């Protein structure tokens, strides 16, 4: 990216096009017939400027207006069909400021491509979360020597770089969440030195220059291994379940809220009907006061829990278990739950009461409880897979293992609700370039998914290019 003048007064804004290595299946070039470049406001269906270019022509758009929240879309066409796509994250054009330098990942759609980036460590069992600026943060997991990785890594799609930005507390299986102002909190897990549940709360903040700051504090109420946390629609975070290592799971939730430059931790007076660890917590909508579904996990005896519970944020209480007690068809733990575009919750994978993998998916609705939603396809990871919601509302399941202790798989699948009858469809998409389990993936501001770790040794970072749908 550079600022250069092609005429006496012209200002050149030069988005940097990144992409998979030439020769890769995911590489957009060289066999495109046409490239369409578009400038639009983020989220707007209409274009501000757009032009198409054939082979050999210089790709450029003249007359770009000033403004905030602008994005550049690049579409590659072959034989009349759109086969490649990429877009920048939002940027601003301001005559008072130097031209911005947004990067753009341009690749064949529904393909994984390797990034030109070296992760700090192998990172098996790590976590990923999207930061408020649209970048992805990676932390936790074990390295090639089975030691906890303390490096906090950040992949910034605006610069196309993966960097280690800070070190975090050494622990395993921490819980992550974003509070309302966008800062990320890390809590719980198992202290790698003492082997006890960690009471350390870390608040991660990254400034505009990409510099991270980690503020640690200790809270006895957060000493929980295998807790789950959810961000409410008003920005507060509520932590459910989990508990001391080898002890009974805790029934009382804890609330964490932004409080100026710091955070406030408050133990709530509510009690879960079935205290559990390793549950999922899924907010049912974006409306203020939207309830949270807590599903699955292991009870105090170590058995998977069938009964789901509902957290009601405005009352700061759980729904009465005599009136709300939907039961999963297959009680399970180590599963994943994700909200679908219609407000239902899809429960995927995990293990049942006998420790066997659960291939059956379930779909929860408030009015209908849990219902069968078909089976994961053979070859799909049932545990240790990454589950990421794509910009169009579909769900990407990548890697994982078909059985506990089984070999990692490379298969990736798209799960979506059939727009015609609402049934759940699972179809194959491009395979990962290598088998992975316990890896971490996050969707970023440009709509792509970045994934790393999950291999015995440090391995390439992969990036998935979803279809353009939902990426305006």
């Amino acid at each position, binding site marked *: 990216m*550079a600022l250069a003048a092609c005429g006496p007064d012209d200002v050149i804004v*030069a*988005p940097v*096009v990144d992409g998979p290595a030439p020769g890769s299946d995911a590489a957009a070039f060289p066999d495109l017939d046409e490239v369409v470049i578009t400038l639009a406001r983020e989220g707007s269906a209409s274009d501000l400027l757009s032009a198409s270019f054939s082979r050999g022509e210089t790709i450029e758009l003249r007359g770009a207006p*000033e403004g905030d929240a602008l994005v550049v879309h690049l579409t590659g066409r072959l034989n009349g069909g*759109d086969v490649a796509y990429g877009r920048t994250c939002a940027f601003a054009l301001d005559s008072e400021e130097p031209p911005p330098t947004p990067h753009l990942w341009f690749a064949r759609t529904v393909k994984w491509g390797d990034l030109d980036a070296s992760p700090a460590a192998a990172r098996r069992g790590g976590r990923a979360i999207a930061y408020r600026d649209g970048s992805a943060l990676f932390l936790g997991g074990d390295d090639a020597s089975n030691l906890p990785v303390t490096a906090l890594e950040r992949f910034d799609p605006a610069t196309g770089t993966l960097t280690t930005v800070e070190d975090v507390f050494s622990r395993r299986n921490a819980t992550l969440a974003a509070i309302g102002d966008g800062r990320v909190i890390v809590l719980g897990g198992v202290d790698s030195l003492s082997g006890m549940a960690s009471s350390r709360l870390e608040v991660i903040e990254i400034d505009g220059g990409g510099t991270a700051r980690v503020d640690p504090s200790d809270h006895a109420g957060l000493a929980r291994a295998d807790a789950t946390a959810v961000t409410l629609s008003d920005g507060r975070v509520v932590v459910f379940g989990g508990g001391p290592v080898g002890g009974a799971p805790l029934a009382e939730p804890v609330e964490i809220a932004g409080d100026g430059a710091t955070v406030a931790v408050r133990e709530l007076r509510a009690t879960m009907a079935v205290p559990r660890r390793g549950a999922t917590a899924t907010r049912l909508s974006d409306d203020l006061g939207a309830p949270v579904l807590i599903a699955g996990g292991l009870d105090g005896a170590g058995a998977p829990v069938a009964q789901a519970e509902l957290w009601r944020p405005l009352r700061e209480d759980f729904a009465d278990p005599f009136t709300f007690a939907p039961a999963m068809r297959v009680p399970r733990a180590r599963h994943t739950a994700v909200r679908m575009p219609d407000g239902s919750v899809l429960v995927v994978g995990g293990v049942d009461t006998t420790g066997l993998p659960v291939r059956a998916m379930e779909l929860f609705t408030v009015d209908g409880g849990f219902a069968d939603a078909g089976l994961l396809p053979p070859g799909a990871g049932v545990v240790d897979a990454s589950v990421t919601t794509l910009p169009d509302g579909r769900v990407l399941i990548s890697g994982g293992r078909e059985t506990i202790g089984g070999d990692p798989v490379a298969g990736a699948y798209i799960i979506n609700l059939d727009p015609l009858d609402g049934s759940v469809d699972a179809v194959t998409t491009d395979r990962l370039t290598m088998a992975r389990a316990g890896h971490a993936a996050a969707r970023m501001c440009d709509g792509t998914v970045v994934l790393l770790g999950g291999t015995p040794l440090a391995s390439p970072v992969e990036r998935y290019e979803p*279809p353009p749908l939902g990426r305006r």
Partner: protein
Amino acid sequence: MGVAPTGIAWAAPAADAVLYWAPPETPAALRVRVKSAAEAHGAAFVDRSSPAPKPADPTRIAAAVTAYDELRFDEALALLDQAAGELDRTGAAGLDVARLAELFLYRGLARIQLGQPARAWDDLLIAARIDPSRVLDPARFPPRAIEQLERARAEVAAAPRGALRVTAPAGCVISIDGAISGDGRAELPHGAHWVDAACPEHLPWGRRIVVDRTAVEVAVAATMIAPPGDDDALIQARTLGAASVIEVTVLGGAARVRHSRSDGRELARALVTIDGDAVTATIDRMLSPPPPPREKWYRSRWVWATGGALAAAAILVPVALRDTSDGDRVIRPTGLPPW
């Protein structure tokens, strides 16, 4: 073709708005030029043209075929559902027989892959009805799909047929299931079919027709394309609060450019070709302010204004030259490989 003399254009006041109307087949560049000419003079631009109905988009079907070939069946199905949704409105205008049949064939194939056999069968029947000669390459398609299409072809071959007759005004080009029909007649298997008609000076017309008996007759009722009347222009001018407006109306390859006050009094009129810059030159002339009256040079406020402007420029130009933002802002990606 020259610009018709108006004689009074130089004395006419500048108009507040330019009202533009053109039939759908008019080059879009003309609209852009007229809009630029209006805006260059500070006049509002109002496009009163009826939007042209969009024909079916064959690239969407091509993209769906690509998605199917790359095993993205759900994406292929979504694209084909969108394409099929347009057909009842367009009557398959813009699609030939092969593309139209391909739409339903690939939708059926995608549905087979997605485990929707009943709906897949319906699509394969339609595909066989539109193009009974279509067969699948055994090297590219699974045996189940080939067998299903063969069954569909056999069922269509055995189905009863009906005579479709499409009547339309003279000059219309009629297509039935994507194939141009000279006389608007066809013998078709019972079931759904698509008819479209392109008639001069009419909006495109298209329908889905069900042939369910021995003879079916359909009359094309395309809407005529006509410019708004003079009263509409006056109403538009008053709505805008304009003292006067310029109407640009394109008909038969020529543009009528008419400058009138909001009370209906015509100030200038010209009939010019739409090629080249004749339309914009006429608009420029009509929008130009009247020349100033002759007067002593030292009494002219323009002399004093120019002197003031020069003095201001002597101060401001060096400042402005330091601001690079006055130039055109160009977005030019870097990092692209040669292609």
